[in-house]
């Protein structure tokens, strides 16, 4: 009898423990590691600024552009040969200008794949999807500037866009769509993003918001030469937020006069670190520097004279001397886009009004401005000059060099002189110029070199 009792007891205990089993097996293994299970996990991935807001490859375009030069002895001190190559448009495989972008896209794809897997209310779902789509569009557009030719309606279906990785599955091979299809996807993403995102979050513009999405969309249309759309979008963006800082109020005595998240910043992102863009190395193109008039407040707020008598750029919106320059989206860029499009579409009075809104905040209030040119060409030239002076080293000069006509650039070709060697590249060559993928990408994937 006793024996039977104890057998029953054993069976009873086994049953009880079995029921507790599932909970036991689902316990989290490492408290600092987590599988994705809540909306805060997804937000945390989107807020991982180390990859989401840094290391944009537009830096490569800046190095290949004409805003600056470096002295011979500094050039010889650049140890990465592939970095030197960018400066002289030598098509060598790039070093690391690649993987942070795809690491960012991994976060994007992870968030997109989890939207339906976890419980989200409508507001968070729209917000998260909007953020992810913004980052996706921004990353592919950023990559397209470097790894694809300039957009040309006639050839866009024939040339390739940057590699696309559309899922987190490692076994899923990257694909390359035509540049047309790529741009279409970017536009679709940004349209949705501007619909899903709200215009809050401007206190910490590391998070994508509606204005950032519209700002980027107008930049994308501009790159494609679609002035009507670019105008419409820039107007929409400026309707809800158009604030500019008055440079008369900015203290030129400080070496780095601008705050990190200043009121003009719609979206904050910075370049990849690059040896050539260090303050100690990079010197402003003398023609560009001389183009700032004395009443232009940017002349003193952007530049600091160096021991070698040339000027370094110290007016970066990231607020310090970092080699990683600010390349985000600002209200000033939207004003410039709006003015450019209005001028392009023949609305010269509107264009003058628009550009005046910006110049009022950039030129000394004590000196009277000369009247704007009255002809379309003249006004456009003026707007492009302002654009260049406003957006230098922001990752847009390379795009502008590739889309604008010779008359608005003011030269046929770019030149670099190192020692007794002269390197040059014509504007036409720039339009179809693409950089080469890092060697490792070619070794590890099935893709052909660019």
């Amino acid at each position, binding site marked *: 009898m006793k024996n039977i009792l*104890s057998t029953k007891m054993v069976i009873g205990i086994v049953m009880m423990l079995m029921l507790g089993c599932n909970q036991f097996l689902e316990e989290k293994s490492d408290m600092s*590691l987590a599988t994705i299970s809540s909306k805060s996990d997804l937000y945390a991935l989107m807020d991982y600024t180390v990859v989401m807001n840094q290391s944009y490859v537009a830096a490569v375009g800046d190095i290949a552009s004409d805003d600056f030069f470096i002295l011979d002895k500094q050039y010889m001190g650049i140890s990465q040969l592939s970095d030197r190559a960018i400066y002289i448009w030598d098509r060598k495989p790039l070093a690391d200008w690649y993987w942070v972008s795809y690491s960012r896209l991994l*976060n994007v794809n992870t968030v997109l794949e989890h939207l339906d897997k976890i419980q989200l209310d409508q507001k968070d779902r729209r917000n998260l999807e909007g953020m992810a789509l913004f980052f996706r569009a921004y990353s592919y557009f950023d990559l397209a500037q470097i790894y694809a030719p300039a957009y040309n309606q006639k050839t866009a279906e024939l040339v390739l866009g940057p590699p696309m990785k559309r899922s987190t599955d490692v076994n899923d091979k990257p694909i390359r769509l035509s540049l047309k299809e790529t741009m279409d996807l970017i536009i679709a993403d940004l349209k949705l993003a501007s619909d899903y995102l709200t215009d809050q979050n401007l206190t910490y513009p590391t*998070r994508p918001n509606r204005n950032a999405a519209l700002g980027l969309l107008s930049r994308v249309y501009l790159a494609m030469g679609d002035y009507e759309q670019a105008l419409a979008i820039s107007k929409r963006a400026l309707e809800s937020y158009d604030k500019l800082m008055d440079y008369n109020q900015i203290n030129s005595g400080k070496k780095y006069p601008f705050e990190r998240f200043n009121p003009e910043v719609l979206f904050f992102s910075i370049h990849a670190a690059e040896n050539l863009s260090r303050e100690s190395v990079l010197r402003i193109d003398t023609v560009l520097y001389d183009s700032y008039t004395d009443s232009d407040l940017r002349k003193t707020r952007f530049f600091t004279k160096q021991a070698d008598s040339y000027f370094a750029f110290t007016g970066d919106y990231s607020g310090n001397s970092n080699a990683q320059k600010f390349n985000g989206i600002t209200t000033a860029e939207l004003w410039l886009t709006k003015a450019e499009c209005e001028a392009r579409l023949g609305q010269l009075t509107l264009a003058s009004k628009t550009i005046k809104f910006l110049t009022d905040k950039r030129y000394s209030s004590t000196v009277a401005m000369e009247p704007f040119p009255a002809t379309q060409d003249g006004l456009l030239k003026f707007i492009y000059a302002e654009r260049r002076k406003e957006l230098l080293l922001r990752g847009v000069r390379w795009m502008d060099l590739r889309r604008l006509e010779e008359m608005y650039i003011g030269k046929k070709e770019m030149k670099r002189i190192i020692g007794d060697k002269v390197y040059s590249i014509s504007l036409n060559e720039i339009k179809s110029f693409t950089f080469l993928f890092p060697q490792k990408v070619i070794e*590890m994937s099935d893709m052909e070199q660019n």
Partner: protein
Amino acid sequence: MKNMLFFPMLLLLITWNLQVRAQHGAERLYQGVIRDSTGKGIADVNIRVIKDGRVIKTDSTGSYKINANLDKIQVEISHLNYKSLRTVLSTKDIKKILILSAKMGMIDEVLVSGYHSLHKARSVGSYEKIDKVLLDRTANFDVLSKLEHLTTGTYFDRSEYSFNDNGKPIEPKIFMHGVSTLRKAGLGGSKPLVIVDNFPYEGDINLLSPNDIESVTLLKDGAASAIWGARAGNGVIVLTTKKGRFETPLQQEFKASIRVDAKPDLYRHRVISSDDLISVERFLFEKGYFNGKLTSNSRPAISPVVELLEANRKGVFDDEALAAGIKPYQYTDVRDDMLKYMYRGAALQQYNYLVRGGSEKLNGMAQIGYDRSLASLRSDKTNRISSQLSIEAKLNRVVNLSGRLMYNELKNVSALATDFYSDNGYPFPYLKLREGGINLAVPYKYRFSYIDTVGAGNLLDWKYRPLDYIDEPPLVTTSRNLLADLGLQLFLLKGLTADLKYRYNFFDRKKEERYFINTFYARDLINRGTQITNGSLSYNFPYGGILRQQDGFSKERNFRMQLNYKTDFKGHSISALAGAEWRNKDDGSMGNILYGYNAENLSFVSNIDFSKQYPTFGGLGGNNTIPFNSYPNTDITTNFVSLYGIMDYAFQNRYLLSGSVRRDASNLFGVETNNKWTPLWSIGFGWNLHNEKFFKSSVINFLKLRGSLGYSGNVDNSMSALTTIQYFGYNNWSVPYPMARIVNLPNKELRWEKLRNVNVGIEFSAWNNSFSGSIDYYNKYTFDLFDTQPLDPTSGVSSMVLNAANTKSRGFDANLTLKKNWRDLNWAGNLLFSYNNNWIVKTLTDQQSPTSYVLKGGISNLPGDMVYSLYAYKWEGLDSEGKPQGLLNGDKSTAYWDIMGSKTLDVLQKIGSARPLYFGTFRNTFSYKQFNLSATISYRLKYYFKRSSISYQSLFGKYDGHVDFYDRWQKPGDELLTDVPAMVYPLDDGADLFYKDASVLAERGDHIKFQDLRLQYNPALPIGSKIKSLAFFIVAENIGLIWKATKKDINPEYFGNIPAPRSFSMGATLTF
């Protein structure tokens, strides 16, 4: 040293003072029977009457009769196959029954798996048991390092051996039956699963005293180890602890031993003389090699000779003064001082007391041990206290209760002096470390000429004296372990029992780094943070000591329920068990750093701004911040649920069939994997040929054939099939949103490493057990081994751990024993022989650059290739300028970077296996009366390694001038005579890297070694003495190489590194 000798002396005194008391009387008859543990009588047992030396033998039924004219006689009972017994026979016993237990390897030996125990005759698996007698052969700090020369199929990797670890507790790298994982030890690598009695022991094995262990059982094949399922992949080692026994008189045992090692032979690292090194320095100085250092703003350390040369160049003093200044260095070797002040012969003292016994219903055991290890580095020492208490009670016919408490504590004190002086390379080898009782400073981090004068006396002393750390070692680690076992055995029905077992195992490890204000580490950081403005000092780095603390703990809870059933009917015997097990383990750690720490009043600075940037003193570097606590807080929970069953079936003790099955689920795997996780199983058969009617042999008395097939696995805590993320806190832009990074990409196809073991074996015994042994042949396949694979960066990560490779292993283990006796002289020869080789079957990526193949400890990536292959660059001799030449595209070449980065592997030569394919030991044991002498010879055959040679990078940069320097190419024509490249300036680091891994440096590692020699003496004890037995032993280990294949003057066992020193131990065991 004095107290070390105390205990042995005491033991000797006790023996000598024993009174011999004998009683006389009429002739008496003593009768009895001697049986084995199965109850069978044993024939031909020698019974020696100690008093008069007569030897009486038992008859075929095991019975004996002895006539003597005493009330009591002391006898020694011995038999070839059984453990000897010394006992007292009394006339009160009418018919005495004595039971002898089998010696190791004998057929009625009992094997344990951690879930059940079984007789060797009934087992179908490959088990290897090492008993107490063998474990006690040598004196070691931990139990696993005793196993090396006692087991087959188990390879102890010593390729990363460093003499500085000697005496310190280290984790041995053990490979059982070859490859089971490709990952490095420590990263979930190939550590076998260690079981203490019934449950895994995952703490530091050094916490366990070898004296706690009764026996060790290795589970080698599928049939033996598959029962441990997903954790058995690397092999299983079962440690059985000492316990009390029912119906045994109270027994006390006292053991003491001392082990002393020779000092490490630093001169084995063969370098050029200080005089010649100084010539090289002068050569480099003239070439301008030091100009960069001499003008650097960071003021790096510069040798005293270069300081003198620089002063001479500046005209501070003339050539004569220079020569006089250099002279003392020319004849100084820093190793003289290192051996004198830094090193000593390591010593290990071990003491252990044990008492155990039991009545019919109750048994118990208590044990306490103390071990003290002084490492060869003078600063380093380890103390261990181990204690155990166990009790078992038969409460009634049904319930049997057992409990055990174990507490161990390990305290280790060590220095970091080896950071500066290691076994390869002594910066500035001509320095002195101590003179006139004062520790001398050596140039370290900064030049003397800078720190001597800078700060005008306002700074703290900025000099580094290596021996200061030896005098006051800053690292203190204390580990504790509390283990509690509770067991309940229920005898439910006939043959049916239930076991309930619970274990709580707690580990705690506290590590303290005590950098007080007098240490260089603290002084340096304070000085670097000092700011002097207009003569007033301010400290950006908190003034005072630095105390770093790290505390880790682990809490394990195990619970097991098991039903056992045993039955015999008509020649069929069945033994089956089924059970379920829960296991929960919590690991955690945390740490902190205290700055401005004052050890006297325990005060420290609390208001530290870790984000504040401050300039480095004197522009020695860029801006600094105070280092933040870098110890991560961790909290890891591991849960396992397992279901298992074993069934053994035997028919007429002739045919054996055995099977096991186990299924594991864990919170590590994720739900999907748990569902996919097929049960691991094994099946085995055995055939006891000697029990067959047709098998009639007068020679062979035991012959068993057995075979098994089994699956086991390896789990890895760090892997998940799902995307995992890790939180980071906040970013440096003060954005108030938490951030997380992706740690692990999703991998739907993630599978756990799986192994398939096929084993066939033969066990035999012939000529009445005079010749016995076992031979096993195994084939092991591994599937889906993890390896870090580079990925296309477009995927978002540059590499990922994937199920990347399959391998196969083949091997052969033989364990043969031959015994012979001539009256009082017994001899036993025991040969252990192992063959093991491993091949890559499949890999994900087939091509890697040649550099990854020549890496030390590298793993081959070519299907069909040996896993541990030694590769080297093809060697084409020196060219006419003394440059080493390789082969590139079929031509001799000095384009080293092209060779090393070659797209094809044509530039490489495969030398052979990097691990011995054949290894083992041969042990001879002689016993004569009270003496027992044994000697072990070990061998490792068929493997290659690359010896070190001159590296000009090391010579120029680290002053490590290999003695091959003397044979270097010096003038055209030398290329015909030597293979040592020329010294060129500027340095060609490509040539250096190429030569280091060139085939000309490959050597055969084969060697035979005289491993140990041991003598034991068991003095005869007088009748009636309270002392039951007494034994003394002395043993010498690492005696020396008998033969080596290489002609070079290097010790292949340690791959040319400084070998483990000879050691000498002695000890005594007293039982009463």
